[in-house]
């Protein structure tokens, strides 16, 4: 029920070099059969397996070695394998991030970096959030602040980050709705959210292999009542684990393939989804005069 399109770069500890521009498409697919109605886990035979396919364009530009800006724009399509509910599709949310490496220093035999990120996202089309779980997104405008620490020793690293997401109210196509009480307005108060992310792995010559764990916690919201449908302001929580990799092509290091798999291990008011993403990224050198063929990804 959270169709999160996480670009790789707003969540890792790597910076793009000055004037480098990395861009590429990503395809993703995730699905769930079991879901949590509040804390009660079960399935809905009238939905079967609910899946979301995603096609995302993402980019990252190095303003300086320490300051990057990035964007993502996903197209999402949903489908239920059983029942009559129609899947929806469309362009979801445009997200923009500013990533700033504020601190980087040798510590012991490794290097510690502290990175701050600020992100903003808003719907890029007039989709509805009021048809969960078939909606392609939750419609809120989000402001996110993220603090990240990255420690690398030799070829091994650990990255941890914490994010606070402030979410705007959303508007439904109807004039009244019921949460735990009735509301006579088309506007829904969306609870803010927090997320945490830990990554451990290997990083060398542009190759990354890492294990990932993340948690999304909605700070407020209410539980889906028995046999009811989900609602945008539910208390949606999810803990996921998975793997992620990036592999630059030896014959052409500007070109890299990326991929990840993630599965949900605990949740509340969300589907227990498992999914993968795969993409191809290319790094362009947008330096004014310099002409070089070397990849711009800085370790």
């Amino acid at each position: 029920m959270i169709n999160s399109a996480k670009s790789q770069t707003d969540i890792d500890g790597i910076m793009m070099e000055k004037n480098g521009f990395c861009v590429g498409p990503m395809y993703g697919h995730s699905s769930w059969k079991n879901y949590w109605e509040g804390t009660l886990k079960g399935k809905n035979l009238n939905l079967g397996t609910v899946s979301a396919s995603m096609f995302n364009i993402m980019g990252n530009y190095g303003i300086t070695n320490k300051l990057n800006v990035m964007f993502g724009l996903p197209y999402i399509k949903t489908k239920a394998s059983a029942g009559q509910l129609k899947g929806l599709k469309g362009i979801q949310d445009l997200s923009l991030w500013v990533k700033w490496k504020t601190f980087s220093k040798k510590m012991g035999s490794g290097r510690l970096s502290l990175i701050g990120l600020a992100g903003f996202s808003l719907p890029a089309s007039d989709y509805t959030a009021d048809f969960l779980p078939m909606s392609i997104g939750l419609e809120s405008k989000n402001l996110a602040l993220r603090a990240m620490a990255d420690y690398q020793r030799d070829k091994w690293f650990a990255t941890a980050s914490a994010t606070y997401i402030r979410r705007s109210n959303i508007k439904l196509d109807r004039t009244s709705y019921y949460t735990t009480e009735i509301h006579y307005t088309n506007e829904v108060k969306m609870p803010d959210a927090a997320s945490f992310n830990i990554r451990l792995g290997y990083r060398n010559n542009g190759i990354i292999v890492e294990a990932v764990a993340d948690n999304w916690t909605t700070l407020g919201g209410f539980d889906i009542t028995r046999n009811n449908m989900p609602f945008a302001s539910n208390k949606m929580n999810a803990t996921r684990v998975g793997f992620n990799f990036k592999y630059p092509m030896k014959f052409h290091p500007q070109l890299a393939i990326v991929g990840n798999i993630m599965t949900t291990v605990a949740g509340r008011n969300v589907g227990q989804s498992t999914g993968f993403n795969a993409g191809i990224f290319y790094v362009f050198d947008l330096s004014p005069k310099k002409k070089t063929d070397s990849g711009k990804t800085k370790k």
Partner: protein
Amino acid sequence: MKPMKKLYIVLSVFTIAFCYSCSKELTETNLEFPALQPASTDINAGIWKPVLLTGPTEFTVAAPAATSTPDYIAQVNEIKSFQSSLTSQEKNAVKYWSAGAVLRWNEIMRELVAKHNIPPYQNPDGTYPIPSATNPLAYPQFPFANPPYAARAYAYASAAVYDALVTAWYYKKLYNRLAPYKVDATVTSLIPQSDLPSYPSEDATVAGVMSEVLKLLFPGDQEFIQLKAEEHKRSRIIAGANVRSDIEAGEALGKSVAQKFVTRARGDRAGAAVGNQTIWTQMENDCIARGETPWISQESPKRPGMLVLFGRVKTWLFDSLTMVTTIRPVPPPSTSSQQFKDETEEVYQFSKNLTRDQLRIAHFWADGLSTYTPPGHWNAIAAEDFVKQNFSEVRWARNLALLNMSLMDAAIVCWDAKYFYFNPRPSQMDPRIKTVTGLPNFPSYTSGHSTFSGAAATILGHIIPSHAEDYTNMAKEASLSRLYGAIHYRSDCEKGLIAGNKVGDYAIQRARTDGAE
């Protein structure tokens, strides 16, 4: 360090935006309603025609004490004592209830309907449990407030409130005891003053009716209902609008009148509307015998159709013979006819190529799970308009009674047609059809939304003629929303609207002769 400075600026802008990004507080339209200031007291409403009562004196209200007695003076002092130390909570309660007793209790009912409008989850063996009124808090909670249930609930409550207020108005005029703020100039009125006599209290009458009727309809929500009733009655004393004996007399009257409606409800055949396996099978076989494809539940596991015998529930505005002979819609296009195929294809086209605005319309009128249902939606529409009309409480009650008797009769007419014809849903006939709203678990013909909306728009257009065209257009949109949602054929919508209009016409006949016009 120039880039650093820029960075600080960028981050500061973000942080400020973060902290001050738009306030999340909601403006809820019903909490913006002003205090009720009736254009007329309708002082002669005691002679209006009641729904069930034989007349305004069927229930007696004893004469009140004179305003010069020590008893009355003590009651006035109770008001002054309240008013000398008002909490903000009390002020809020006064403001909330000042919008009108009939309005607020109608809202409370809509909230209870929305809370309970969720079908039970299946048993492990694939059957479905049926909510029990004698054990309302156990799962599945009682009631499942689906559209027919909701229509019936709104109708009983509204009609009972109307009859009780007609009686209250009769005794108000008879005894003519003025409001405390008129009797004692040192009593502050926290709400607009009125010339209407205050004994018995109209507010307490409504609270008395509703707390009694809701015991039957929402037996698991007593604590919530009683807290509302207590707050309501207290707010009237705090406001200086009633003394305690006004309240007590009104509440007792309301509870007595409610009993008459509860008795009718217990015998109106709604209790047996769920039906049983024999009846479900019989309906399916009758349809097959007519050479038609019968409706089949598309839920998994298959769920028995919703309230298969609701079409036999006792009506308000006409008798069952009239319903069958003059209101029941003509048969739907045969499932083997070309027209039926064409209409199914039309539904498929909407399912496949829906515009964003059609999706908006489908969702605006969906009134599905966890909502106050289509009858509740028309109550909400009526309430917003009635607020601007400055009706007296008794006229509010009369108009809502007309609306809700129409909506319940519309439910009966529609459910009669649904199970008489047992017509399949579009997605049963063409599995390519996917819906953008929940597929209701009962036969297709006619559309409930269309029947409800046809009835509501007709009677509301009579009550507020200047809005008649708007109501007609809203009803048409509500009707078409079901075609956009891909859950109804065009015939379901059109014939439903017509049947609804006919029901509404019977309500107009009543309205013309009830003495209020």
